[in-house]
């Protein structure tokens, strides 16, 4: 009911504005779908876009809708079927959706949507409890090689970015990714408890989630997945430790299928203006997200490559049956 009222209110405000200021009528009225429940990363991204698009004057109104379910499978199905050809709608998505669609055997795929731009990314980290004998990523690699089943990884949902990363780590050091003993928890909170309680060997998550624990010395970071060392951080990358593991949990925005090139251009421009606005930069700083803006064909290419890489990994760990 709250949502309903909010919508009514939004409509009323839009009407008043339209009547009061004809000059603004040229501006966009957008709808952004977060294919997840309120509160998660996609929802926060959608609401951040809403804030930045309106604050920077790119759009007159932006309405965020939440369609939760199955790692975005429900949302994308509704988006592709319901918003077809609508040049005023966008949907937030990300790394996790790629895996979710493959695992749920979704009839709708990311190939059907119109790619607009990648917006943010978050670096991943592997941590161990402070009293763990493992000091470096190579120690962890040695433990994996000795007996892969005994090394337990805690992280987020099965098939999500943490799980894919565990498999990629094993693959990168020449161990059998299929045998990785990965233990999924719902959300970073629960897995953090398991790591701090030393119930598992190591934990995988987004860096920002564990930053407080790392700084306070309760967790030790073995390595991060960025290409180069993060400025001002003393955590080594996997690459500099001789392990070829580069990965980021990215979030992007896409448009419905069947829109005209002009409509696509309009959305591209809007997002580009938003990304360059101060409002957006402020939000990124607050949330600790890294700017990873990539648009046009480069983004479409990137999406294809990630899709292939993730699907391969999920096949190799047996989550997706080929």
């Amino acid at each position, binding site marked *: 009911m709250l949502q309903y009222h909010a919508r009514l209110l939004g409509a009323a405000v839009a009407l008043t504005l339209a009547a009061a200021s004809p000059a603004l009528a040229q501006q966009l009225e957008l709808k952004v779908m977060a294919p997840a429940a309120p*509160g998660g990363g996609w929802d926060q991204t959608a609401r951040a876009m809403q804030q930045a698009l309106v604050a920077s004057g790119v759009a007159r109104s932006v309405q965020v809708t939440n369609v939760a*379910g199955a790692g975005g499978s429900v949302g994308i199905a509704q988006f592709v079927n319901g918003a077809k050809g609508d040049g005023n709608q966008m949907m937030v998505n990300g790394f996790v959706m790629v895996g979710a669609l493959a695992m749920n055997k979704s009839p709708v795929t990311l190939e059907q949507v119109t790619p607009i731009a990648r917006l943010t990314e978050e670096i991943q980290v592997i941590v161990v409890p402070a009293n763990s004998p493992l000091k470096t990523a190579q120690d962890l690699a040695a433990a994996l090689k000795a007996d892969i089943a005994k090394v337990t990884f805690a992280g987020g949902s099965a098939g999500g970015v943490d799980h894919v990363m565990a498999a990629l780590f094993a693959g990168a050091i020449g161990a059998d990714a299929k045998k990785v003993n990965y233990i999924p928890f719902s959300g970073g909170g629960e897995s953090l408890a398991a790591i701090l309680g030393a119930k598992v060997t190591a934990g995988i998550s987004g860096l920002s989630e564990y930053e407080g624990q790392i700084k306070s010395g309760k967790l030790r970071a073995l390595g991060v997945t960025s290409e180069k060392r993060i400025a001002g951080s003393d955590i080594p990358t996997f690459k500099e430790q001789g392990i070829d593991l580069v990965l980021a949990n990215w979030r992007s925005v896409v448009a419905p299928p069947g829109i005209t090139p002009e409509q696509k251009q309009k959305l591209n421009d809007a997002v580009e203006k938003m990304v360059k606005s101060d409002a957006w930069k402020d939000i990124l700083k607050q949330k600790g997200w890294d700017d990873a803006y990539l648009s046009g064909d480069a983004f479409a290419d990137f999406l294809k490559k990630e899709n292939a890489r993730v699907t391969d990994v999920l096949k190799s760990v047996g989550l997706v049956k080929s």
Partner: protein
Amino acid sequence: METFAALAHGMAVAMQPMNLLYALIGVFLGTVVGVLPGIGPALTVALLLPVTYKLDPGGSLIMFAGIYYGGMYGGSTTAILINTPGESASMATALEGNKMAKAGRGGPALATSAIGSFVAGTIATIGLAFLAPWLVDFAVRFGPEDYFALMCVAFVTVSATFGDSPIRGLTSLFIGLILGLIGIDKLTGQPRLAFGIPELLDGVEVTTLAVGLFAVGEALYVASRRHHTEEKLEPIRGSLWMTRQDWQRSWKPWLRGTLFGFPIGALPAGGAEIPTFLSYSTEKRLTKYPEEFGKGAIEGVAGPEAANNASAAGTLVPLLTLGLPTSATAAMMLAGFQQYGLNPGPLLFAERPDLVWGLIASLFIANVMLLVLNLPLVGLWVKLLAIPQPWLYAGILVFACMGTIAAKPSVVELSMLAGFGVMGFLMRRFDFPIAPVVIGLILGPIAESQLRRALAISLGDPMVLLQSPMSATLLGIALIALLAPFVMKGLGRFKANED
């Protein structure tokens, strides 16, 4: 002593007029959304996040805490009056509370729940202030095997407590466990029993099941009985306020409920449902008036309500000390912290003591406000029951559907609500208890994934369940609770033979 000084400072922060206003807005909003089934405190905090973006961090976090406490409280009002728990944590309250309301004792039921929430909330908040660092150590050591053992205790007590016979209780529990299997398997990511319907991939929503079984089922049942005998509801019989006897019967359940609620709420995967039901079972066993249970025993309202609010304070322990959100609302509050560039965790107490202690102090204030806000309303709420039955139940049906649609706008969800309503009707008709179904749905998936996690970590060795002292103790308790009734029966027969 340091804690006292810090708390006093926190009080000064929270007593600032603006912060008092935020707390008031928070508890009011919380109570309102707690009353609506489907819209919980988590959703409210999520919707308010962008609004509070410009406020100062202290004020808006205090408001969020008020929403959290208020929501916990508001859910029990509808549970008592119209048998519609606003959220799963107030299910146990509905069991006895609604019976009391129907017997004209709605006033005392609401009062004991308000005062019980206040007492438990206050004690638990004191616990949060003084025990947090110690408690969090304990909570972190709680491993998957220990959770599994805790769930076993909950299953046994629940199936033994509800219904006329353990068999009926167990049947209901298993229906719930089966419903809990629907959706994506958390550990392998494979869909189960979803029949290709994408809406089912996330499993059955607890509120949809609870509202369907409790509210819709009840409405259908009442409609079906109308031609036989019209149930005369008396809004008030006897005193509107709690009698001396009510007080005597309430204070111990309040304290026991707090003892269940606070530590279990502090566990990362504890939740509010287990303590409320454990408290209900305990009160049923300890009561001096066992004949009243099932007909409206005040202990059955006082205990679970206290447990409910104490667990809300408990969830703040891991949130503030570790940055560990253990409930949906706590996760939203974490997002609220991060919005201001604050990372809850071991450093927060050191970096922003004003904020943390201001928050803790405002919890005290939120509790007082809830009491002041709700006690005078008791008389007003009870009048709801004077509405003619057909109107009241029609209203409940509208209310239930709107709540469900608001939470998840989909045809599948609404059809499920209707289906569960019919199921609730049939279960009432044939005397099966409905609460264990919901418990099964909530706890079944948790028990399953914790057991499988424990086994994955131990490489498939089931002995891990006995090697952890905590898990072994809890499993022992579950076993005793399961066998005790049969042993007692046997002993009774033995004695009878001797005579």
